């Protein structure tokens, strides 16, 4: 655990130094836009909002992308010699990368939400009350849904929990496979492999799986949900052990 904590600490430092740049710009733009809404004309404020939304997308994207890029950089480029000579196991390396990436993505999402709240500062009380009522209605709807369909709600939560690491593990797996090739265009190989996988998956989803999904939903929505949960779990576990096997046995560091 000590080593995992150290790895996460350094990984977070490496990622945050990059991910915080668009986040800071996003917050500053939110503040500027709010001030402009209050003082200048709405045209300039709207332009600021457009830029703000752009940097919000950038904050979310860069946080996600760097979580993947950092995995590749620290394991399969020349810094891999340092990473792989650390007194840590492949499991510790994978968990630290995965947890750090998930933490950064969550933090990015929270910062985005908090930055949106800047627009509420200084609004008239009646407007704030209306916004509060709207959020309260959404909360009530979720509570009602959770009470009416507790199993489905739990299934959705489980699927969400399984999907979060999956989104990183699939990339880790294709990068691990890509680095097996000795050619210098290993990143290109990994990207190509990912695109090919997504292409095949989309074809299968729309042809083979769509009929099966419809049949399952007809029988029971819970059957459909649990099949998907098992599928996500299997992909998570499969990708994890593939990554682990390649890091332990087949790292192809080019000097």
């Amino acid at each position, binding site marked *: 655990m000590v*080593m995992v904590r*150290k790895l996460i600490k350094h990984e977070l430092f490496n990622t945050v130094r990059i991910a915080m740049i668009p986040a800071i710009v996003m917050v500053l733009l939110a503040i500027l836009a709010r001030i402009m809404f209050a003082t200048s004309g709405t045209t300039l404020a709207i332009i600021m909002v457009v830029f703000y939304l752009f940097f919000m997308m950038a904050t979310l994207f860069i946080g996600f992308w760097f979580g993947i890029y950092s995995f590749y950089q620290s394991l399969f480029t*020349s810094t891999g010699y*340092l990473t*792989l000579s*650390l*007194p840590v196991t492949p499991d510790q390396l994978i968990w630290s990368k995965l947890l750090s990436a998930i933490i950064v993505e969550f933090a990015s999402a929270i910062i985005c939400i908090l930055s949106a709240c800047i627009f509420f500062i200084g609004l008239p009380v009646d407007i704030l009350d209306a916004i509060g009522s709207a959020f309260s209605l959404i909360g009530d709807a979720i509570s009602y849904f959770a009470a009416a369909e507790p199993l489905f709600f739990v299934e959705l939560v489980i699927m969400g929990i399984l999907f979060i690491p999956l989104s990183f593990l699939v990339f880790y797996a294709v990068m691990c496979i890509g680095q097996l090739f000795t050619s210098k265009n290993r990143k290109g190989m990994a990207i190509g492999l990912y695109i090919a996988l997504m292409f095949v998956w989309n074809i299968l989803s729309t042809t083979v799986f769509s009929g099966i999904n419809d049949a399952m939903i007809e029988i029971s929505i819970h059957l459909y949900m649990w099949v998907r949960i098992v599928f996500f779990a299997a992909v998570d576990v499969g990708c994890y052990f593939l990554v682990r096997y390649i890091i332990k046995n*087949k*790292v192809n560091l080019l000097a």
Partner: protein
Amino acid sequence: MGEYIFECDNVFKSYGSTLALDNVSFKVKPGGVVGLLGPNASGKSTLIKLAMGMLQPNDGRLLIDGKAPGAETKKITAYLPDANYLYNWMTVEQQVKYCADFFKDFNMEKCDALLNRLQIAKKQKIKSLSKGTKEKLGLILTMSRDAQLYILDEPIAGVDPAARDFILDTVMTNRAEGSTIFLCTHLIADIEPILTHAIFLNRGRIVLDAPVAEVKEKEGKSLDEMFREVFKW
């Protein structure tokens, strides 16, 4: 520490149809400076990567202080690869702290003394250092550890004679007491004076495994002359 710090027992390693290591066996006792010598593509780097747990042998076993390479053996092994392994975005100080954080045997006083000797400022970004200085920094970080085994892969390749002297001097004066140095190179003449044991590797096979003094006495030749003879084209 066990009887042998580094053992190879009938190790085979292939990459597809290419046999990189062919039935390699040797045992290295603690202490001394061992030269793993051979031309390019002889299997030296493959052997080192196996020792560092970056690869697994197809057959046979490799032990570091009696244990299979892994997290435990990396605690006692300091490795200098034949590549710039530093994080370019870090400052020298950040890189030093990174290494010190993970390796309990990292000696900060030794590191500071070496950095001062080379006048490498801690606040400098690594990407702003010259190639030669980065290589020296990599060596400093490796030799700042009080490890039981130092594995140095081509530490003097591609550097000028003065830098070679500095590197070899740094290696010999900063190694932990009782430690073993495993030096991989094809530049024999420069390292011969410090070697105590030589292992010649050619096309994945051991062709010589003997103490340097024994080779000189028996063959009446220097290691460099032996190397030229064994690896003649």
